[in-house]
């Protein structure tokens, strides 16, 4: 496991070489002495904990931030990008971790923003539409077209638009910052194939993900960052998962989920749904008991998030019964002791311009909760690192934002807590911590419902699993069901059709 950063395979052509990169924000050092190189046709994974500096490094490459020290060389020439457009012209395309589209504009407008084709000086919309269609076809994406408005698309479809946008740049280097966070399993497969095609064309792909399975599936080399410093660059074939985790986290981490409750179904009933439904759901029967974790599985669009939002009161049920109360609004939901950790944290979970502290206290204040749980305690429980209470949330790394959303609900100790993709974008160490926390909450009497597209997580955490399909309950599975069993139920009608 020697450090191979400075000597990539001799025959391959180095297209990117970043040397000694350092960067500070407001006097706080977030990167120091980072070296990173990439060769033509290579997939180079960059891994590290939340806040390690992965996105910042990529933003320096993309011209969004300017480094305080160090150099960026592309194709042998040293470049100093003052604006993202300069990086784009030098052949750097990037899929940002954060949502980076205009909701009010069409797919084609978004894809070609900043590089709109013209004919005789005028916008060539026909060319934009055609090129966008072609790229969508290549991705096997037929559920929407170039003229659709981005705001009408699902999160996964929007992610596809971001990918198309990066592909439409004639790039030598493609950066993907957690591209799979919002994708379903089969879409991840498509992305894999796409990355292979980019590789075959001699493009260097820098790939950031917290899902180590993807890293091992795709990467030739892996660079590990920790606390803004370069830990190692290794060939993917030369390390094990455990070794990689140790480099990232700095300690050994067991790969197991916390043990399940001994007698899960014994707790009192916290919530019952009988034939509940609304525009997106129908005939839902469900019971949540204190102390158990119920997993919800299903394909994209099967109604998983809708179920959580309906129980919470954000998109209330219009039919059927929910006891003890059927909240007609979020306020009623919160008052009834129901909490929701939303899937889309930027839009629904956080006040981005406010500091961590105020965000953590958001719910507590909204319902006039007096007991001031010490914010610093909460932040330690969710392992926010570094635990700076005064930082505005918009400056936090993606994974750290998720932790703040969690902290927000811990302040009020809800009776029923719903988790929609709770570990999306969260690093391995923190993921384990969130799992422990969920089990801890369950053990102390909270009823928990969890939605996750990561089947191992869902199966590992749940005491039982409800599978949704087309807005209805397709079936129930006991703890420890296999991935195949879950998928069979979730996709049954597709197989039958």
């Amino acid at each position, binding site marked *: 496991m020697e450090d191979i950063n400075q000597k990539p395979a001799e025959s391959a052509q180095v297209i990117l070489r970043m040397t000694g990169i350092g960067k500070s924000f407001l006097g706080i050092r977030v990167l120091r002495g980072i070296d990173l190189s990439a060769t033509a046709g290579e997939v180079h994974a960059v891994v590290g904990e939340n806040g390690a500096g992965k996105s910042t490094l990529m933003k320096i490459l*993309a011209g*969004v931030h300017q480094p305080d020290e160090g150099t960026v060389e592309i194709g042998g020439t040293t470049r100093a990008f003052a*604006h*993202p*457009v300069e990086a*784009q012209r030098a052949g750097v395309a990037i899929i*940002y971790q954060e949502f*980076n*589209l*205009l*909701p*009010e*504009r069409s797919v084609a*407008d*978004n894809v070609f*923003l*900043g*590089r*709109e084709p*013209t004919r005789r*000086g*005028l*916008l060539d919309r026909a060319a934009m539409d055609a090129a966008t269609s072609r790229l969508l076809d290549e991705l096997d994406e037929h559920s929407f077209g170039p003229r659709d408005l981005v*705001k009408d698309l699902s999160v996964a479809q929007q992610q596809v638009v971001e990918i198309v*946008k990066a592909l439409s740049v004639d790039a030598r280097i493609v950066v993907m910052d957690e591209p799979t966070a919002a994708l379903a399993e089969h879409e991840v497969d498509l992305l894999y194939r796409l990355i292979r095609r980019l590789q075959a064309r001699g493009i260097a792909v820098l790939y950031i993900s917290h899902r180590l399975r993807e890293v091992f599936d795709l990467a030739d080399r892996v660079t590990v960052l920790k606390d803004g410093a370069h830990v190692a660059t290794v060939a993917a074939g030369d390390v094990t998962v455990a070794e990689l985790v140790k480099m990232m986290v700095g300690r050994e981490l067991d790969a197991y989920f916390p043990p399940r409750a001994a007698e899960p179904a014994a707790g009192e009933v916290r919530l019952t749904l009988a034939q509940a439904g609304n525009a997106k759901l129908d005939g839902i029967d469900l019971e949540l008991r204190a102390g158990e974790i119920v997993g919800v599985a299903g394909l994209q669009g099967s109604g998983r998030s809708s179920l959580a939002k309906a129980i919470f009161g954000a*998109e209330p049920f219009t039919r059927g019964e929910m006891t003890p109360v059927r909240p007609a609004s979020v306020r009623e939901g919160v008052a009834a002791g129901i909490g929701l950790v939303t899937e889309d944290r930027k839009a629904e979970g956080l006040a981005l311009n406010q500091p961590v502290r105020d965000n953590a206290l958001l719910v507590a204040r909204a319902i006039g909760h007096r007991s001031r749980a010490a914010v610093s305690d909460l932040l330690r429980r969710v392992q926010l690192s570094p635990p700076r209470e005064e930082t505005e949330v918009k400056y936090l790394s993606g994974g750290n934002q998720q932790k703040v959303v969690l902290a927000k609900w811990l302040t009020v100790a809800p009776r029923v807590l719903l988790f929609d993709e709770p570990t999306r974008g969260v690093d391995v160490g923190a993921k384990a911590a969130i799992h422990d926390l969920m089990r801890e909450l369950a053990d102390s009497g909270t009823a928990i419902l969890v939605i996750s597209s990561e089947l191992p997580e869902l199966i590992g955490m749940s005491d039982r699993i409800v599978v949704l399909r087309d807005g209805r309950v397709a079936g129930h599975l006991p703890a420890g069901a296999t991935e195949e069993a879950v998928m069979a139920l979730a996709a049954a009608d597709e197989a039958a059709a």
Partner: protein
Amino acid sequence: MTGRVVALVANPTRAVYAALLATLAIGWALVAFDGGTFTLNDLVGIQQRSAALGIVAVGQTLAILAGSLDLSVAYLISLVSLVAAETMAGQSSNILTAVVVALGVSALVGLVNGVVITKLKVHAFIATLGVALVIRGVLDHLYDGPAGRVPVDFQQLGYSRIGPVPVAAILWAAVAVGVWFLLRRTRFGNRVYAVGGDVEVARLSGVRTDRVVIAAHVLCSLCAGVAGLLLASRLGAGAPTVGTDGGYDLESIAAVVLGGTALAGGRGGVAGTVGGVLLLAVLDSVFNQLEVNSFFKDVVRGVVIVVAVAVYARRTGRRAS
């Protein structure tokens, strides 16, 4: 039926034109009931009066779509009227020079607005208010009444007609079509929407956002400059209060918003603005015909604007959920 009404209101541009037609019909009925008549002449008068506001509002649309706004247009109009009238000094031979100088001054003011907003990162509200105050200071210092003289040739712009259509209205239409074309069919227009929609997304996508905002402000000020020239031709002279008396700053913003353009930027367009201006003008005419007192007039205008924006907000609110 209700479905159709909802569909109608769901698109602000269509909604404002529907409101315009309704106001015309109701106004016509009221005026008839009152014993008066609403003639073609009145309609022409409406266009005549709305032309200056219309031109300013079209420019304002650009600034607002780009996520900015311009409070300096009223003082700029006064300044331009004076610069033009003084340069012309009653001589037809000076018209061309005067127009060039007037538009040059306008462009310069727009440039200052844009640069202060983008480079010094001052919020548009404060930046353009500051520029407005600077212009006011200059006007107060140099003038205490009308000055300069506009030759008869140039007064044609304000008063003559081609058939029944006033030249001023044609000028307004030309400016509106020009800006509409710019927004719909050019890269610049596309980027105006992008920058107004989300500056950061636009920047990360490779748009040089500062340039877009500056250009939008230069064009906005140029429109105000054209309105200033038009008003000078009507008055036959320049006047230090012509812009503020007309309330062109807030009125133009009101017309833009009434036309369905989001004050936050990124959504809307010129067509709506034209409808908004006409709606305000028709309201005015009807009230004049009915000889309603001006206090009541203002109340109704205020209510109309607030209700319109509330209706649009409902629409977007529902879409987002």
